[in-house]
């Protein structure tokens, strides 16, 4: 052991510079995993610790309908029990707000939240002027608003805003948003008093208000409170949620994204691993003589292998420690630049667990990838010291090698599964990486082979460069792999982003409306149609809609708690907006059953969208019972439709044959090609809301802007990670060039001795790296085009088009990078005097 440790130390002393780049790769991989995991875990614990504050209560009872007498009585009974320490009622809904001053322009979709005097049951929130929130501020038609409302409607604190039929005075702007869920929001939030909501006239029929009762309880009594509520409230339309569930949801969400993201870090680490496999191979090749000498001096193969394993572990550990320092730096960066978009009170320290994980990963990946190259030590024979010839030994079946290979694969599966948090995803991902790697290798071999065929090039430099791609101990495959993979990721993300942006760009969406009107009541229909026709000269098509929930399928009642239905909770528990008509839309096709005749039928019939097929056995011939505002209606499924959602102005999962729903409570919705310029559109919106305050208007352009921003920041993040991969690729490139430096120095010296000028030698270098960069760029961009096409067509289901600028720029960028690195690394080669090189041992 003494010998092993001492030899390892001595070897590292002399060769660490050559190995440096590869362990920097390990560092970058470990760093990204540790930083990602630490950040997400910190955000998770910050959110979990705030779960109660986010919900604003221990328990939330939620319903999309006004709570009926029985339910209210049941809740009050529980609320009066000693279990409950606090109660407040809220109503939330999306609606429109507009300045009260008729001379001010604009109307804006907001998220209105009407809160009772006890709100919030937990926590505290402050206004921008430093005051603490107090429900008294909302008394007598006061409102506290999000900054967005002031900005968009050009208002100030003290101004008045009209919501529904009521004028509210803006009394403050909120700093943080209590009781708000994170995520996508259509408009700024506005707080008013619970007592004022009925005056607005917005809670009448057809309103999309959510009625909530928030309760707080003693520490430890949460479960018994929930049990009591569940047993008293048997109504299926009521949803009971606790802050613990929010915690669980947050945990689940974060763990999943943490695991997915760390797989990206793992790809970087694997790239580093490939670098390590390569450096180990070349390193052992260079150390052959020293190993033969050791064997001559009495060292066994296993002892010598142990010397190199010790070096790999030491450098893997050093790389990981470096990675952890990088992660620490990254967390500093996150704290300084992204603190605003992360939960408040979030800690920005490294998590001990992730640090240990990073260290283990760094060492494991180093070991796994160096295992096979290290096996070569066994085959180095000491008699090479006597005879310089190395007769190629006939390759026999090498059991140890195969066993090691199997162990390495098993090890990688374990590492990937561990990181993905699932054996299936881990194995799948590893398989994907392996296939991608193999394809890249195959493509590069093919291209190199093709280039080799073109030996009849006139230029000496190019001919020499082509030969260099094949020289013994060449780094061609590794460079192509590392750089190609980096280029692949960056180009793929860029071109996919371009396609996504093109897709959501309204300019490319042709027939889609730029405004949607919702919540139009039956008696308002004609009025709204007339108003719009007057304003823009075109009569909008308003579609009748009815809100419904699935009550039973094939006679079986929906019980979301039951085991077999739990998996379909999302599709079974949601509210559906249904419509009726006797014709198919342009973007619909029947894929099963038959569309009904335009004549009325005696029995109710429905057509379901393809996405609903199979839901608890739902198909043509099944029956489906829908609950429409308390009235149960059973209909037979007579057809299944395929809907091209992208081409739809509106889309419906459930479609009724006309007549049956004539008496159902109907609301109208409609898309509208309003004025293109923002100001006129805003004026039209104001006009509609002024007359019909309950009608909500979604401005598509605004939503699209929001989505575009979101998409840009997502793709920025992905590009950043892709950039990391590219960076690792560059490091491997530098390292690979450094590995063959001696050989190239010697070659350059020989060429100079034979009469080549420095210019010729430089041209050779340019040609060699230009070729390498070109091949890597071509392979990377081809793979990127394939990936972005597949993702666009089959995952996002959007049309795809080649982005020549991105692809061309990607290839050019790769060539420039590889040539720059190659030439920079070759400067000392060009400078050295030939004699010194040729004389060196």
């Amino acid at each position, binding site marked *: 052991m*003494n010998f092993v440790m001492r030899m390892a130390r001595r070897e590292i002393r002399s*060769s660490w510079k050559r190995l440096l780049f590869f362990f920097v790769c390990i560092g970058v991989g470990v760093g990204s995993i540790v930083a990602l995991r630490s950040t997400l875990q910190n955000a998770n614990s910050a959110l979990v610790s705030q779960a109660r504050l986010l919900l604003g209560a221990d328990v939330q009872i939620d319903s999309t309908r006004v709570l009926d007498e029985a339910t209210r009585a049941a809740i009050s009974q529980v609320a009066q029990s000693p279990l409950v320490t606090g109660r407040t009622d809220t109503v939330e809904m999306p609606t429109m707000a507009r300045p009260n001053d008729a001379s001010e322009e604009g109307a804006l979709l907001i998220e209105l939240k009407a809160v009772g005097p006890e709100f919030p049951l937990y926590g505290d929130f402050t206004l921008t002027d430093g005051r603490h929130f107090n429900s008294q501020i909302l008394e007598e038609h006061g409102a506290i608003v999000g900054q967005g409302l002031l900005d968009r409607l050009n208002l100030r604190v003290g101004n008045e805003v009209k919501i529904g039929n009521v004028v509210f005075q803006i009394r403050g702007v909120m700093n943080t948003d209590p009781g708000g869920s994170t995520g996508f929001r259509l408009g700024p939030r506005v707080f008013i008093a619970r007592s004022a909501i009925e005056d607005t006239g917005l809670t009448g029929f057809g309103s999309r208000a959510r009625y909530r009762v928030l309760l707080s309880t003693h520490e430890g009594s949460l479960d018994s409170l929930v049990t009591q509520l569940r047993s008293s409230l048997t109504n299926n339309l009521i949803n009971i949620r606790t802050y613990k569930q929010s915690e669980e949801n947050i945990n689940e969400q974060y763990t999943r994204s943490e695991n997915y993201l760390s797989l990206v870090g793992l790809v970087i680490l694997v790239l580093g691993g490939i670098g390590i496999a390569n450096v180990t191979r070349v390193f052992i090749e260079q150390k052959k*003589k020293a190993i033969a000498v050791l064997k001559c001096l*009495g060292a066994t*193969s296993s002892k010598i292998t142990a010397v190199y394993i010790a070096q790999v572990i030491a450098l893997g550990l050093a790389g990981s420690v470096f990675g952890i320092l990088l992660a620490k730096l990254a967390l500093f960066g996150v704290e300084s630049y992204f603190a605003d978009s992360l939960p408040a009170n979030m800690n920005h320290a490294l998590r001990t667990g992730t640090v240990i994980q990073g260290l283990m990963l760094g060492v494991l990946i180093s070991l796994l990838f160096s295992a096979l190259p290290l096996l070569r030590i066994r085959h180095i024979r000491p008699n090479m*010291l*006597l005879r310089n010839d190395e007769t190629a030994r006939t390759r026999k079946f090498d059991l140890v090698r195969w066993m090691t290979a199997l162990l390495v694969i098993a090890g990688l599966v374990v590492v990937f599964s561990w990181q993905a948090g699932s054996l299936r995803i881990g194995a799948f991902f590893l398989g994907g990486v392996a296939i991608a790697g193999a394809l890249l290798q195959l493509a590069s071999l093919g291209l190199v082979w093709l280039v080799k065929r073109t030996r009849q090039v006139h230029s000496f430099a190019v001919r020499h460069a082509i030969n260099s791609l094949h020289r013994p101990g060449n780094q061609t495959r590794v460079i192509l792999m590392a750089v190609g993979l980096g280029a692949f990721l960056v180009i793929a993300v860029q071109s996919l982003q371009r396609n996504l942006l093109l897709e959501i760009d309204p300019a490319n969406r042709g027939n889609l409306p730029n405004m949607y009107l919702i919540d139009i009541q039956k008696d308002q229909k004609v009025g709204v149609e007339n108003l719009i026709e007057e304003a823009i000269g075109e009569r909008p098509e308003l579609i009748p809609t009815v809100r419904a929930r699935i009550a039973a399928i094939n006679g079986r009642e929906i019980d979301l708690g039951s085991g077999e239905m739990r998996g379909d909770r999302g599709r079974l528990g949601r509210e559906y907006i249904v419509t009726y008509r006797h014709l198919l839309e342009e973007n619909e096709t029947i894929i099963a059953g038959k569309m009904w005749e335009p004549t009325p039928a005696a029995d109710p019939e429905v057509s379901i969208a393809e996405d609903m097929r199979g839901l608890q056995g739902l198909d043509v011939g099944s029956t489906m019972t829908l609950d429409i505002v308390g009235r149960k209606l059973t209909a037979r499924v007579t057809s299944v439709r395929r809907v091209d959602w992208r081409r739809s102005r509106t889309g419906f999962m459930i479609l009724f044959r006309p007549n049956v729903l004539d008496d159902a409570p109907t609301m109208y919705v409609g898309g509208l090609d309003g004025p293109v310029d923002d100001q006129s559109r805003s004026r039209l919106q104001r006009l509609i809301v002024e007359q019909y305050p309950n009608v909500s208007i979604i401005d598509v352009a605004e939503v699209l802007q929001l989505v575009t921003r979101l998409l840009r920041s997502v793709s920025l993040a992905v590009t950043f990670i892709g950039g990391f991969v590219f960076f690792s690729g560059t490091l491997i490139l530098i390292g690979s060039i450094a590995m063959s430096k001696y050989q190239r120095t010697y070659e350059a010296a020989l060429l100079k001795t034979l009469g080549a000028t420095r210019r010729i030698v430089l041209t050779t270098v340019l040609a060699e790296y230009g070729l390498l960069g070109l091949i890597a760029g071509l392979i990377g961009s081809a793979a990127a085009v394939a990936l972005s096409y597949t993702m666009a067509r089959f995952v996002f289901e959007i049309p795809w088009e080649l982005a020549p600028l991105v692809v061309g720029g990607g290839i050019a960028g790769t060539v420039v990078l590889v040539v720059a690195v190659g030439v920079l690394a070759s400067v000392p080669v060009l400078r050295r005097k030939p004699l010194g090189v040729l004389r060196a041992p």
Partner: protein
Amino acid sequence: MIELFDVSKQVPSGSETLTILHSLNLTIPDGQFVSIVGPSGSGKSTLLGLIAGLDAPTNGDIRIDGESIVSMNEDELARLRGKKIGFVFQSFHLIPSLTALENILVPLEIAGKADAIVRAQQLLEDVDLEARATHYPSQLSGGEQQRVAIARAFANDPSILLADEPTGNLDSYNGRHIIDLMVEIHQRRGATLLLVTHDHNLAERAERSISLSDGRVVRDKVRITSVPAEETDVAEVLQ
């Protein structure tokens, strides 16, 4: 004692087989100083390599102190070398990443010697290089490198020292110095010394001189101390 019984060595050369050593029988008693001479390609280095277990014979048996080494695996051979055999090469073969002292330390450490560092320093002194202890091979002259190699070969007090043209890469002054050193240590420690050389003058200094040609022993001359050198026919010796 080194014993070779019907040892031959063949290697594939293209599609044919090349015989480097023809059925060879040889006994070298403990403590003898033997020189092996012959033209290039006569099989001298191969013979040395076979005795050191660096290569395996195609046929025949080789015994070191009565123990057959032919059936030993690589690791057993390595251990045997570590214990009993020292080797000096024509091109020194010092490990370039280690200092002079560390090069000598290596075999001691492999053998797990407790006083390795003290012994290595002593050996370096024996070859007059204590001042160069921390120098790397590239910072030493050829003669100095070979002296380090000799010190390394003697590190574990081997009973057999094999030297493959140790002066081949040195000038005559340095060459003589190296041979003097080897002979001196051989005499002091009583180790068997097998010296492959082209230099007939050098060969004459050995107690016994074996001439090889085309893989066959053509002359085996034993010079017994105080008795004039006496030529023997190969046939006689073998009998």
